[in-house]
């Protein structure tokens, strides 16, 4: 993190001038600095003042993978001038030793100056680059920065598993997703973290001889660290298999048979983590059980097994790496386009938690 230029700048034009000055000074005849930009990243810190420092550290690491302009918005202060901003740069050595730099603008508003923030952000966005807004923790309540920032974002990034009230967070997410005029996309870390688990479950049915068992699923049990992981996994299966809501907490297959969806909490497991998934199905008049479970004390290591017609195939061990915050956000920022599978899963997840 280069602290150069850390003085308050009252207007977007001043901020741009300061950034231009930086680029002019940074490149010399001997050593060219490469400016790389593939996105705008707007970071909304909704927790305490220390969150700006944590977000800044994370943004610096993200810039090494995905360079772009970051605009970090601090939580509203109680006192002082309405609105302050300063610029800084994140530089690292890229390929062949070239220095690669990204820009960061930090906006520090008071509660009173919050109204000025969306307009300033809009002026500071790099033209024609996608806008990712990363909502760090906190509830997606109505009003405040939420509405205007959603409006200018192509991607709304968050981790709903971290919210204190995961169920409400999913409902709020669905409201954002279903805004009629919004063409953006939601990127939920809680959903992306489940991708390896979804791959594991899908891999059980890559074997054509076992695929028909998908139509005979009778029970899905998920042991997880919080309600969001279960809701997403179950919502995904419900939507992919075309299960119907039969009222209350009941779901049925297209052939009318009931499917039991069971959610249990694994003691001491972080929210968003999954400890085990078990799928029971009837196939050719025999029971098939698909199991994936973490090893004791090794939440990343998963053992997979299939028992079909009384015969248990040799279990397999795989790693389902848990992404840290930077890794997760980097993964999210590389997603583009609409994800219809997520949209369907979110809709069903909200139905599940309401049921």
């Amino acid at each position, binding site marked *: 993190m280069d602290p150069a230029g850390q003085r308050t700048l009252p207007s977007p034009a001043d901020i741009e001038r300061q950034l231009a000055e930086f680029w002019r000074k940074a490149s010399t005849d001997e050593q060219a600095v490469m400016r790389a930009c593939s996105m705008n990243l707007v970071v909304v810190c909704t927790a305490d003042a220390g969150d700006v420092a944590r977000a800044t550290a994370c943004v610096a690491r993200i810039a090494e993978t995905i360079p772009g302009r970051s605009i970090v918005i601090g939580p509203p202060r109680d006192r002082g001038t309405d609105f302050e901003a300063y610029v800084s740069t994140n530089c690292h050595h890229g390929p062949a030793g070239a220095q690669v730099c990204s820009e960061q603008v930090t906006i520090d508003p008071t509660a009173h100056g919050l109204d000025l923030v969306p307009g300033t952000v809009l002026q500071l966005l790099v033209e024609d680059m996608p806008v990712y807004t990363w909502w760090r923790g906190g509830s997606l309540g109505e009003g405040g920065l939420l509405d205007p920032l959603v409006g200018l974002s192509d991607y709304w990034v968050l981790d709903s598993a971290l919210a204190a009230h995961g169920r409400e967070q999913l409902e709020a997410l669905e409201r954002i997703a279903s805004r009629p005029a919004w063409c953006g996309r939601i990127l939920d870390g809680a959903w992306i973290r489940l991708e390896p688990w*979804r*791959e594991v479950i899908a891999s059980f049915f890559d074997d054509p001889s076992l695929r028909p068992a998908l139509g005979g699923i009778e029970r899905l049990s998920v042991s997880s660290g919080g309600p969001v992981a279960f809701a997403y996994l179950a919502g995904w299966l419900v939507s*992919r298999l075309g299960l119907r809501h039969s009222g209350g907490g009941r779901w049925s297959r297209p052939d009318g048979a009931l499917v039991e969806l069971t959610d249990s909490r694994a003691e001491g497991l972080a929210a968003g983590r999954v400890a085990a998934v078990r799928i029971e199905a009837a196939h050719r008049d025999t029971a098939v059980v698909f199991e994936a479970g973490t090893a004791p004390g090794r939440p990343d290591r998963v053992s997979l097994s299939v028992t079909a017609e009384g015969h248990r195939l040799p279990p397999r*061990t795989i790693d389902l790496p848990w992404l840290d915050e930077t890794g997760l956000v980097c993964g999210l920022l590389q997603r583009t386009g609409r994800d219809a599978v997520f949209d369907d899963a979110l809709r069903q997840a909200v139905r599940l938690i309401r049921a």
Partner: protein
Amino acid sequence: MTEVEDNPLRVGLRRDRGAEPCAIVILGASGDLTRRKLVPALYNLLEDRLLPSSFAVVGVGRREMSHAAFASELRSGTVEHSRRDLDPELWDSLAAGLSYVAAGADVEGYRRLASHLDRLDRERGTGGNRLFYLAVPPSALEPMLGMLAAAGLNRPGPGGRFCRVVLEKPIGRDLPSARALNRQVERVFREHDVFRIDHYLGKETVQNLLVFRFANSIFEPLWNHKYVDHVQLTVAESLGVEGRGRYFEEAGMTRDVVQNHMFQLLCLTAMEPPVSLAADAIRDEKVKVLQSLRPVVQDDVGGSTVIAQYGSGVVGGHKVPGYHEEPQVAPGSRTETYAALKLSIDNWRWAGVPFYLRAGKRLPKRVTEIALRFRGVPHRLFEHGAVPNTLALRIQPDEGITLKFETKVPGPQPRIQPVAMEFRYGTSFGQPPPEAYERLILDAILGDPTLFIRADEVEASWDYIDRLMGAWQAGARRDDLPRYTAGSWGPPQADSLLRRDGRAWRRL
């Protein structure tokens, strides 16, 4: 093969089709390729959760070896060559499915292999599906295919849906031998079950060529004779023959690199847009490029090609011997270690645009690049400068794309200077790409032949190379094989090849 509905849970995941259970059988398992590339690739696929839910890896070789000894050998190879550190527990998961079968020159060993595979189907759930990887020298290919057929191993096992074979380059050493091998393969396997590897096609940057050309509307309109002056393809290696003297003596640079890697790059650069991304749609267009290459004319072979051999010199600060001093190289060898060609593609798009290819060993650095030099402006307004634009696609190392264009130097005078606008993969995408073999093995398991070479592609490229080599021999050019100093960019004759046309090689 019975059609089964797609797995609906795969929609939206990294791969929309999962790998079906199968046994991967490596023939020639005691060779270097297995421990350096194949098994490390399988280990990384396992770590990336891309291997089938049930699988087994069977090594087949001539010498007797226990399963444990085979697994131990591969473990050390993986420790040494994997792009990731080996995780003992994950390795054990892979090793639990490793086994070894000794099979010699008689069919009996292959029958034992067949029984072993049937047992794996029952015990490990490999489902009767087979992928044979023939990691053997070219001379062993034909007899081995015969053995597989004789033991009934060219069909899926009980309940299986596929039986595929992967062939390593070189596919033949000339057109007749390539044809003979292709016919032999056809007698044993169906063409859509044959996967001929050119590992260049597994490189991310090579695949990006199609994306760059056909997913960006700004370049394709310029990608033709109206705007492109010429194209340069370079495959430069700083290494010598590295203990492969015997092989290289037989092959030479033209057979080893130009016929396969360079012609694949040429095809991807020059091909027309395919109608879809289906394997045959792409491969059809590639074949058309090879068929459009203007045949070599005996009288012109001296004016349009240069071959040479490296002498001693200094590469990377180290003294290196000349080709003749390399082990297993005949003292009077006339095998070329450098080739430069001027090719013409006789079709509507590329009429009049020369493609200059150069490939060599012991050049100053390792670099693979495709560069399009655009035509100059039609009327020169500025006195100095105005160097034509160049678009360079760097395949390796330091993968990226550079566009060179003119800008005004600040000041009262109308001075102009070229600047480079660079895109580098490492700058924009932090994660390292997978090894080419990982992608190719996975595609073979999935049955996707897009990045593999079809029989007619191989034959079309050999057709050209045979004529070229025939012309060299007839013209006795090998009696007059120029030398270049190791660590230089090749012989002066290669510079003259372009200078005659008023052009020059790019300084890399």
